[in-house]
């Protein structure tokens, strides 16, 4: 075993060469599997299918306000756009929650500037949250009812905000992360609390550039944005295009790269076929659904047998297959989003009336119930629906067809949204078609629709059920997840099946085709959560 000794210089060179070779090999493999780093630059054009009625996120409830205007603002805490349902810091750097769950203390970032250059302090945050939770006279706050548990908000120091609750709420942070809770400037709010309805002044990644009504909304990068390196985009342009055919066309010909709400399957197919590998499609469940609402105060729908018959007649599983081809309806589910954290497992779901797999048996049962309740064959009633082509009108057409198959004769009445809402609220209808759309999975949010009509004026079904109200309150205060789920199941059984007050038709499926060069975007179950901060264009 005679050691071979290379001259020292050669040894060093050899070691160096080996090191370099190893490094090159390593970087080669790493380089080929790691995603490209975000590229800075470029302007994103995207489609919004409706226009914002005002510029104030606190008072509006439509996505048409989120998509073009949210990029001008920050929230206190927000949902991670790439990682739903994680709540991450936005203007709040960090926070602590007291043991009893009644006090939330937020540490506010320093050095955050508004677009006009002024510094953000806790005072601005308190003023904005006060406007949302304790709105002054004459100011509309659309989500005020969600924050009933808040007792007070205080700003003891320029970078601390403390929120005290009356009772603990397991999902308070998520509620605070509502994408509509934009942080405004306190000075402006003091001067004129309605200023934000027609003006924009925030701390967000993009400054307001221009808004041409009926045409587009434009924003440009805010150079002094507090998050280093963001936003990647130079700017964005929201194009207001309402017709689905025109939207598909705009996407196909590159006039826009994406539409952030959701396409129907036909539009998706058109776009994908045309663009080939220049486009990709992201799909996910959607926190929206269609509800069938019988008027519980009107004959014969005050008889629970009739209501039950109506839900039994609907072939949800078959309908899901068919309707998911022509609309963006699809998943079958109960009160909580199917595929979400609180979803009812299928084995239990199929036990509910109308959710079973054997449609023939269900329809026979429906006919029997109708006979028992004294409803004659060919009984005529009206189904009131909104004048919106997707997916309401197809839902109406489908329902009419389903009920005809148990010998009923429904008449589809389509109204414009104004008169339709007025009729629903006044109880001037037989059966109505309603919807819900929320921004995150939480029984507090999804179940509130079904509590007694005198407690929630948005429950158009016109019934009072204190047992239900009690169950709602119970689950809201329950901090143990398993027990909470059980109560939610109980609630669901009672609403959809035992009493059949009102019931879901189908939940929606979110289909977002977009150009591959749009990166840093992940589709989630809510179209309200779209956030341009992490988005970039790859070429």
């Amino acid at each position, binding site marked *: 075993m005679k050691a071979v000794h290379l001259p020292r210089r050669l040894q060093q060179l050899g070691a160096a060469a080996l090191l370099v070779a190893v490094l090159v090999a390593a970087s080669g493999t790493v380089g080929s599997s790691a995603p490209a780093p975000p590229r800075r630059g470029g302007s994103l054009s995207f489609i919004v299918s409706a226009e914002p*009625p005002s510029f104030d996120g606190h008072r509006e*409830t439509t996505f048409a306000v989120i998509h073009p205007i949210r990029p001008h603002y920050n929230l206190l805490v927000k949902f991670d756009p790439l990682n739903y349902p994680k709540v991450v810091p936005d203007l709040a750097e960090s926070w602590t929650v007291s043991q009893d769950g009644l006090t939330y203390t937020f540490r506010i970032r320093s050095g955050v500037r508004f677009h006009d250059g002024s510094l953000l302090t806790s005072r601005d945050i308190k003023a904005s949250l006060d406007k949302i939770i304790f709105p002054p006279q004459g100011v*509309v706050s*659309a989500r005020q009812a969600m924050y009933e548990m808040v007792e007070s908000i205080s700003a003891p120091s320029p970078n601390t905000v403390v929120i005290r609750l009356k009772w603990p709420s397991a999902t308070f942070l998520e509620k605070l992360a509502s994408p509509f809770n934009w942080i405004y400037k306190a000075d402006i709010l003091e001067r004129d609390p309605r200023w934000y309805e027609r003006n924009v002044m925030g701390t967000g990644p993009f400054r307001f550039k221009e808004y*041409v009504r009926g*045409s587009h909304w434009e924003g440009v990068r805010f150079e002094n944005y507090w998050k280093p390196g963001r936003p990647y985009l130079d700017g964005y342009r929201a194009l207001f295009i309402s017709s689905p055919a025109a939207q598909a066309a705009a996407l196909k010909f590159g006039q826009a790269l994406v539409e952030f709400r959701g396409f129907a399957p036909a539009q998706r197919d058109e776009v994908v076929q045309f663009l080939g590998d220049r486009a990709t499609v992201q799909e996910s469940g959607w926190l929206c659904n269609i509800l069938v609402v019988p008027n519980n105060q009107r004959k014969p729908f005050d008889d629970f047998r009739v209501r039950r018959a109506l839900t039994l007649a609907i072939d949800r599983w078959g309908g899901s297959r068919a309707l998911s081809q022509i609309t963006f309806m699809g998943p079958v589910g109960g009160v909580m989003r199917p595929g979400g954290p609180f979803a009812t497992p299928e084995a239990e779901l199929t036990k509910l009336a109308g959710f079973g797999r054997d449609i023939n048996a269900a329809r026979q049962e429906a006919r029997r119930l109708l006979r028992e309740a004294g409803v004659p064959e060919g009984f005529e009633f009206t189904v009131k629906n909104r004048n919106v082509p997707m997916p309401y009108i197809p839902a109406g057409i489908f329902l009419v067809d389903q009920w005809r198959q148990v010998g009923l004769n429904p008449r589809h009445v389509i109204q414009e949204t104004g008169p339709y809402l007025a009729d629903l609220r006044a109880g001037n209808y037989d059966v109505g078609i309603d919807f819900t759309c929320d921004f995150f999975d939480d029984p507090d949010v999804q179940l509130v629709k079904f509590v007694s009509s005198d407690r929630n004026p948005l429950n158009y079904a016109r019934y009072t059920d204190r047992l239900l109200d009690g169950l709602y309150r119970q689950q809201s205060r329950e901090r143990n997840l398993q027990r909470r789920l059980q109560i939610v199941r109980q609630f669901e059984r009672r609403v959809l099946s035992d009493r059949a007050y009102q019931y879901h038709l189908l939940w929606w499926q979110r289909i977002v085709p977009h150009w591959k060069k749009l990166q840093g975007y992940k589709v989630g179950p809510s179209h309200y959560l779209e956030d341009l901060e992490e988005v970039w264009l790859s070429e």
Partner: protein
Amino acid sequence: MLRYVLARVVLVLPTLWAVATLIFLLVRVIPGDIVELRLVSGGAYVTREVIQQERVRLGLDKPLWAQYGDWIAGLARLDLGTSMWTGAPVSREIAIRLELSLQLALMATVVAVSLAIPLGVWAAVRRGTWADHLVQVFSVAGLATPSFWLGILLLLFLLSVFRWLPPMTFTPLWRDPVANLSQLIWPALAVGYRYSAVATRMTRSAMLEVLREDYVRTAWAKGLAERAVVLRHALRNALLPVVTVIGLEFAFLIGGLVVTEQVFNLNGVGKLFVDAIARRDYTLIQGLMLLVASAYVLVNVLLDLLYARLDPRIRYA
């Protein structure tokens, strides 16, 4: 002549006032509540007090005659009020869309006139022949074809054959003529065809009337080339009723293109009208209807003045 012009112009004011009053009454009969639509349709829970406050802010709590008074007073100041939905001045909302609608109307008129006059004259001159029948069928078909269906077919044609679609957003002509024209030429064609049908028929019948006149026969007898006779003498005299028809139809194009704008996704006055009605935005609806009616009144006045200029008998009536 001047007195006639002045008299005619002065008469416009009470006419417009009557129009405005009628419009106000018509619009306010429309049921519905914009406040509820705005605040509640998204599914938000808003208290009754807030809804009431909003109504006060929009002036909807005042008695009807007071709202009417406000509006008329505003009109006297040339102020059309503010849109109840967006809070922006009605005149600004309309002005943004008017650019597109006016351009579209003008382009459709150009299409119509360049089709109607030659075809109408040709058909009148070749009366009774296959040419005449062809033109008649062409124009009758134009009246029968729904222009929005024609628009859909045009889009289908462009998509299938050329795999191309017009731009979705409007760029003003002076900023980018190519983009502008490539968007508007197709609806202009779809609308222009129908428009030309009306004008062709009128041209043809007016020409036939004139061709029967003695002085035309005289000109013919003089031995001038047939074409010169037709074009120079007959057409000029036939032009008056044709211009009338073209003018009146043009007035209807502003705001009358509701459905075509839907098909081509144009941000025009028609689409604004549809939205305003859906939202029960009373002030905007009133402003739009006033615009449309005023266009018609204006065109009528202009036509009257034109008639007076060309036909002395009328001036001194």
